[in-house]
């Protein structure tokens, strides 16, 4: 698992980027804040990148993504218009593992239990989402992906399409 020290360094970089124009100059109110850094794991459990949420009140305005070396990969904004937060998702739906777990459990089949949630991606690294394992009473396990309010079955290895194709 990634070290706490790395997460702290990433958090510091994100705060610096937010105070500069390096993140593209989106207009955010002064109450904006950088929240806790979350590791993005590959399907194999290795560190892929760091997700740093930028919140305003209870809304997720956007997020930074840093590579494991601390280089800024992108700032992505949920703001459809500068200086408006309309349409931004609830921050906890993307930053709180317990909330994500509950979201997955709500879509579980009868008897299935939701395991711990971790942030990953749906095949292509640009497609960030949470993954939760659902275990049925007979011991079979299936994985679901969660992005905000949307839950779907994690795609199988055989799907080679733009939309659910393998990462190259």
């Amino acid at each position, binding site marked *: 698992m990634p070290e706490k020290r790395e997460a702290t360094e990433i958090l510091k970089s994100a705060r610096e980027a937010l105070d500069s124009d390096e993140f593209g100059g989106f207009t955010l109110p002064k109450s904006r804040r950088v929240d806790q850094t979350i590791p993005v794991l590959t399907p194999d459990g290795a560190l892929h990148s760091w997700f740093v949420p930028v919140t305003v009140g209870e809304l997720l305005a956007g997020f930074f993504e840093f590579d494991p070396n601390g280089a800024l990969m*992108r700032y*992505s*904004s*949920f*703001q459809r218009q500068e200086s408006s937060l309309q349409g931004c998702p609830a921050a906890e739906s993307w930053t709180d593992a317990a909330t994500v777990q509950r979201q997955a459990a709500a879509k579980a089949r009868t008897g299935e239990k939701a395991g711990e949630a971790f942030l990953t991606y749906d*095949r292509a690294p640009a497609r960030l989402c949470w993954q939760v394992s659902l275990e049925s009473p007979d011991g079979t396990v299936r994985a679901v992906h969660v992005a905000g309010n949307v839950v*779907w079955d994690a*795609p199988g290895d055989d799907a080679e*399409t733009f939309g659910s194709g393998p990462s190259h």
Partner: protein
Amino acid sequence: MQLSKNQIKRIAGLELNALNFAEAMPDALEGGRLRSAGTPVYDINGSVLFHRIPIARSRGRAGYADVGSNAALGEPLLATTIGAEWNERKVLKEATAAAKKGRRSLKFNKVRFVAYSFPKVAVQFLKGNREALMLEWKTWAEVAPSNFERWSLLDEMPAPAKRANVRKFKKRVAIWESRKFRRVDSAIIKRKAFRQRKFVLKLTDTRELHYSPRPADHHPCYELRGQQTPVWCVAASVEMLLNFYRYQYDQVRLADELDLGTCAHPNGLPYSQVGKVVTVIEKLTSKNLDATMHTNPGWSVFRNEIRANRPLISFVPGHSRTVAGYTQSMIHLPDKLPYKGLLVYDPWPPTDCDHPEDGGVITKWENFATQTYQFAYSAVLKHI
């Protein structure tokens, strides 16, 4: 924030020196001199917008620079023209002659320059504070008060855009007023002025899609669409591109055309079917759009399309998004790596068919060096 004449002259010199240092206009500026703060040009509402400053050169072509004195413009350097002289007295003489032609009764006691339809400039003759006549610069055609082209750049600018511009402008001015730049002789444009002092400049070329290819006239014009199932990134991307050209097809219809299933049973676009994007765009626009697929597109494909004011669909491994802008550093300094980034309208994260207004993010900027670009699709509107 309104700059004084001294500040304007000084900032103009620094901006032009930076442009010259970056070799953005090779040899067009070297050796140029700024002798004054130039001519104030007013907004139609009476505020000073910018100054038109002559660039004198003993050798080579003269020119002029438009330098904003009003912070709402966002950047001090608005435009640089080489090969055309700006001589305020001469222009006023011509304007006065044109004004008196056929209007012997014309009375005025004040003349000023007005950006009546920014960046179009006119000469305004005033009697007291009232306009007696306005003539367009060069054509000397009258710009009547009823002329629909008259509009105030400052009054028409949306408040959020104005606030953002003011912040940007102040930041830029603060850089030029910092101690290290005070020592530069800003009245002369010389490449060595910056080289000797080892300044680190951040100069970038940035473009975003607008309503027309004239960026000064309109704000960025592009909208995000979230993918309505976890596998409809291609449908959402096609929707964004078609929306730019005012074709309103919903994602369900586009998914049907692309054989991507239904909301209840969706599927992605198979790798073998990438050509279908071209076919569907052309079909749904009755071939008014001429679509092209670019395999392994390089930077120039994205940059040239955006410069032509056209969005692109971009396929990266396993995913599709659209590109609506770019930024690139214009100068490469030893301690800074050159940077190229794309403005990506990404339909991910997904929404569902009941909430088409949700989903997606705008990424500003995606580092071009860290992504694999498999295919890109551009579309050109056919003209008669």
